[in-house]
């Protein structure tokens, strides 16, 4: 009796594996037949291989991994380069993942996020012929590493100014408590540069404004973000800037619930709550990724730090809420122009 059951199970497993094998073969032939004809330029681009290694956030983080991925996809579509992605599961995966790409002859390997700093330093030394791009971290002493840094304080300044002006003119959902807030993920430089700009921008247009700053100490806990935002709202904040990745989704939820405004970060987050997202401080990781791929493809790879700011559209404000009057938008655009012209310089240090 027992024996029969074992036999039955093994036969089933065998059958399944055979079916798996057969279907595997059929899908393989399909792949091969759809190869398009290519000209030499296209062939050259196709031979240019770009690998992207995400950090542990993964490509659906609504944030920089996702945007880097979008930039990569755009490069594949518009430039015809061959692209590939590995999502890291844990921090110890960074070195093997970067190494794998380099070993397989990828021309450009992109590391997303400052957490990969040490891994890039290590791997780039072993593969001097491979080009590397790291986003959000400074690796300056390697001829084959380019570091994309974002002047996020500039866009922080613009959204801060917009929030300050909204409070000053009491339009839309703003009742005029003259209090605005920030929910930060962690007290780390990439977060604080946004907050620093926000402070300076708001104070520049509205010197009496009060700014509440709190950190949730994580980037992946929407419940904590919501709680923090609700606390700030109860203290009178009417516009809350979230600089907290996935945690920030909760901030936007809270704004929606209490009918106040939230400001999105990194990506254009207007779609999350069109009526309640005032605008977004967008860090165009996709632009940076695409630009560096394009430059490298054309033989213009630049090592060292490459800054992305308002001037080269590496940062910018996202979709603006319909409640914002044109006069405010004009003023913010003027400020953006002043920053581009160097009339205003924005510090990236948060003042206490």
């Amino acid at each position, binding site marked *: 009796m027992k024996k029969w059951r074992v036999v039955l199970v093994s036969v089933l497993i065998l059958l399944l594996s055979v079916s798996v094998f057969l279907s595997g073969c059929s899908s393989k032939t399909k792949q091969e037949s759809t190869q398009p004809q290519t000209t030499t330029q296209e062939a050259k681009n196709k031979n240019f291989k770009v690998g992207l290694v995400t950090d542990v956030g993964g490509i659906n983080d609504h944030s920089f991994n996702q945007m880097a991925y979008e930039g990569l996809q755009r490069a594949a579509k518009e430039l015809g380069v061959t692209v590939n992605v590995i999502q890291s599961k*844990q*921090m110890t995966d960074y070195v093997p993942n970067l190494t794998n790409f380099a070993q397989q002859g990828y021309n450009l390997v992109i590391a997303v996020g400052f957490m990969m700093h040490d891994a890039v330093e290590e791997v780039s030394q072993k593969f001097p012929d491979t080009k590397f791009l790291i986003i959000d971290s400074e690796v300056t002493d390697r001829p084959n590493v380019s570091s994309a840094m974002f002047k996020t304080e500039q866009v922080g300044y613009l959204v801060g100014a917009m929030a300050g002006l909204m409070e000053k003119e009491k339009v839309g959902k703003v009742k005029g408590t003259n209090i605005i807030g920030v929910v930060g993920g962690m007290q780390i430089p990439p977060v604080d540069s946004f907050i620093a700009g926000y402070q300076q921008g708001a104070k520049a247009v509205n010197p009496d404004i009060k700014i509440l700053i709190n950190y949730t100490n994580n980037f992946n806990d929407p419940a904590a973000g919501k709680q923090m935002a609700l606390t700030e709202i109860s203290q009178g904040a009417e516009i809350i800037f979230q600089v907290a990745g996935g945690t920030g989704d909760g901030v936007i939820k809270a704004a929606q619930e209490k009918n106040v405004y939230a400001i999105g970060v990194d990506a254009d987050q207007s779609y999350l709550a069109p009526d309640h997202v005032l605008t977004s401080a967008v860090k165009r990781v996709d632009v940076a990724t695409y630009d560096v791929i394009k430059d490298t493809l054309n033989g213009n790879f630049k090592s060292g730090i490459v800054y992305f700011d308002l001037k080269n559209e590496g940062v910018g404000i996202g979709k603006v809420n319909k409640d914002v009057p044109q006069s405010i938008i004009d003023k913010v655009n003027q400020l953006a122009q002043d920053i581009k012209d160097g009339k205003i310089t924005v510090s990236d240090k948060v003042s206490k």
Partner: protein
Amino acid sequence: MKNILKELYIPVVAVLIAIVIGSIIMIITGFNPINAYASLFIGAFGSVNNIANTLANAVPLILTGLGVAISFKAGLFNIGAEGQYWIGAIVGVWIGYSFSGLPWYIHIPFALIAAMIAGGLWAGLIPGLAKAYTGANEVITTMMMSYIAIYFSHFLLEFGPMMEKGGTIPQSPIIKESAVIPFLIQNTQLSYGIFIALVAAVFVYWLMFKTTWGFEMRAVGYNQRAARYAGMNVPLNMVLSLGLSGVFAGLAGAVQMLGVQHRLYDSFTSGYGYTAIVVALLANNNPIGVIFAAILFAALGTGSQYMQLNAQVPGQMADVITGLIVFFVAAHRVAEVIKGMFAKKQKKEAEA
């Protein structure tokens, strides 16, 4: 021999069924399972470097897995191995970078032993004593202590006492050369830590199955009342087994820091402490089985990275397979319960 086969039967069948169901899911979602499993296997074991990386990932899983297995054997559900890992990592790194001038044969054991003591106290002192003398549920206390440990590391690293001086990234300084456990194979993540893990597994096996103390711990786990009736000190055994469990989780943290990462990064979770529960479950709490279970899950981890690269299958597929394995290991218990009920019913019918 027959016993070994019987012990192997359930995990092996669970893994096989998981692989078969995994391939069905891949076919449905349009991936080629043969390619996927082939690249999963190559990624995990295809070259010396890949094997080394797999083993490197297995090291922390073996050690945390041993810790969890000890507590499970003693009938205690220590699910806070993650926190004990962090405490071990913190102490290991701190000793690693703050003492200079020590020869390696003092520095490394000093860091490891201190981390073991710290991990042991973290698990044994509060959750252990609370369980033994007040009956506080160790599932809750170890879990909560785990959060405390992780947030403590955030405090230390984010502009706290352990943050690298002059840096802007929240991470500890790099440990001194004398504290580094050297790499066993260059250009991989595999350090001599693997031997520490293997020795630890053999040691735990000897301790649990060949000593009186191990027998007492198992007896307490098997039946507390009988153990007490037999004159064993039940509360003491509880504290000791939870403490010992923490010792190995703490050792895992230190070995990972000294051998692989060389500094502590600000992060939400290492993940090892949670995977350790699965490792212990699949190994049926057998210390030698833990080695193989840890290698299996490590292989799924490293292999899945390679699978993304060469078969374009999302890495989450490896997580799906992990989940399926856990499900079927647990389900065999369910199956036994159903079988038992069925048998009873049949017996009754036969009597009637």
